[in-house]
């Protein structure tokens, strides 16, 4: 039986047995290469589920939809390792109770579909621990290295060029599982810290602030990057910041459901090489 078929069966069993009230998974999209999230509540609908190498979106963000988990019933969700990390971050930040989430885990190493054993976040601790030690396979590594080698002026020019494309549609924010705030800082106008106009200064501020808010929390699922309609390489900033918190504080976001947020904690002997 294919993994897809196994998982359809599993989803059906979970719903039939009443173990979960909903399965969040992937369904067919508008084109052959696209998948869209589907929300299944009836065992009869599980045949609509699709699982293949096109299922790359991180679905964990749907779990924090207002009211979804407030009835204390459980929800099953298709997640890749990044999604499980996101689930841990959301649990660590008290946005959900991980006991209410049944994970249907899979991975896509080199585009090859693979099933993951386990159903609760704790079942994946070893997997996520190993992920921390591995070198991440990043799309655009060459570009990242190129940027790192640039002079500050060149870097500034590079990002100015990229950010000038930004139309402030906030698709990055909507797609991000970590952007669960009821009110985003950009929507706060007393005071208006971030210029909302889509001029370059406003774009610069918006993207810096978002990257800072994600530092130490981003799991690099790529949702924002794929959502960006003007193709700003947001993944590069997030990758850079993830590397920074790993190097400086040995922090890898989302390894456990009780992980302390890296920027809300400290060590007395944290590095301070930069302080005069």
């Amino acid at each position: 039986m294919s993994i897809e078929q196994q998982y359809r069966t599993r989803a059906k069993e979970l719903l039939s047995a009443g173990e979960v009230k909903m399965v969040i998974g992937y369904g067919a999209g508008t084109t052959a290469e696209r998948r869209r999230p589907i929300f299944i509540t009836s065992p009869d609908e599980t045949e609509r589920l699709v699982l293949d190498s096109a299922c790359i979106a991180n679905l964990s963000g749907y779990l924090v939809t207002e009211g979804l988990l407030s009835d204390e019933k459980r929800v099953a969700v298709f997640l890749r390792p990044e999604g499980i990390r996101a689930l841990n971050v959301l649990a660590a930040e008290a946005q959900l109770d991980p006991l209410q989430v049944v994970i249907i885990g899979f991975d896509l190493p080199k585009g090859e579909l693979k099933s993951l054993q386990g159903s609760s976040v704790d079942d994946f601790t070893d997997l996520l621990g190993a992920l921390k030690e591995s070198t991440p396979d990043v799309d655009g590594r060459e570009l990242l290295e190129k940027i790192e080698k640039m002079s500050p002026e060149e870097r500034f020019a590079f990002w100015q060029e990229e950010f000038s494309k930004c139309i402030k549609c906030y698709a990055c924010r909507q797609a991000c599982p970590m952007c669960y705030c009821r009110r985003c800082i950009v929507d706060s106008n007393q005071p208006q810290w971030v210029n909302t106009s889509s001029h370059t200064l406003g774009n610069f501020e918006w993207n810096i602030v978002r990257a800072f808010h994600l530092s130490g929390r981003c799991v690099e699922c790529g949702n924002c990057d794929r959502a960006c309609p003007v193709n700003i390489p947001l993944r590069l900033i997030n990758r850079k910041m993830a590397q920074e918190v790993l190097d400086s504080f040995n922090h890898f976001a989302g390894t456990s459901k009780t992980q302390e947020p890296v920027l809300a904690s400290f060590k007395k002997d944290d590095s301070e090489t930069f302080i005069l």
Partner: protein
Amino acid sequence: MSEPFEPKITAFVCTYCTYAGADLAGTSRLKYAPNVRIIRLPCTGRISPMFILKALQKGADGILISGCHPGDCHFTHGNYHARRRWMVFRALLSFTGIPEERIKYSWISAAEGLKFADLINNITEDIRKLGPFDQYHKLIEETQAQASL
């Protein structure tokens, strides 16, 4: 002959250590460069990255963030939190092309009036050498032309 470039520097300091240290520099009648404008806050823990972005928008060529030495924070550990935050934020700024050299950090206690005066002179010189932060200023000018801020 053109006048030497006078950098504009905005400082964010905690009231218990660095602000008091700056006062001590004053009561000791030490002399230092007049380029820095100080914003007083209760603790370095209160200093948000947003302040830096706004200071840059107002045309600052350099920024100074300063508070109590580790272990001396009046609020026990605001400065430890701040240290971690700045470690991350400066990496982010640097990656986006805002030079690390323009954003300075220091620990200055209420007793270090002399250190404060020296620091202000040194960073003023450093930033004078870097020259005006033209790239950012241009960004603001362009933006102002496009839309009223």
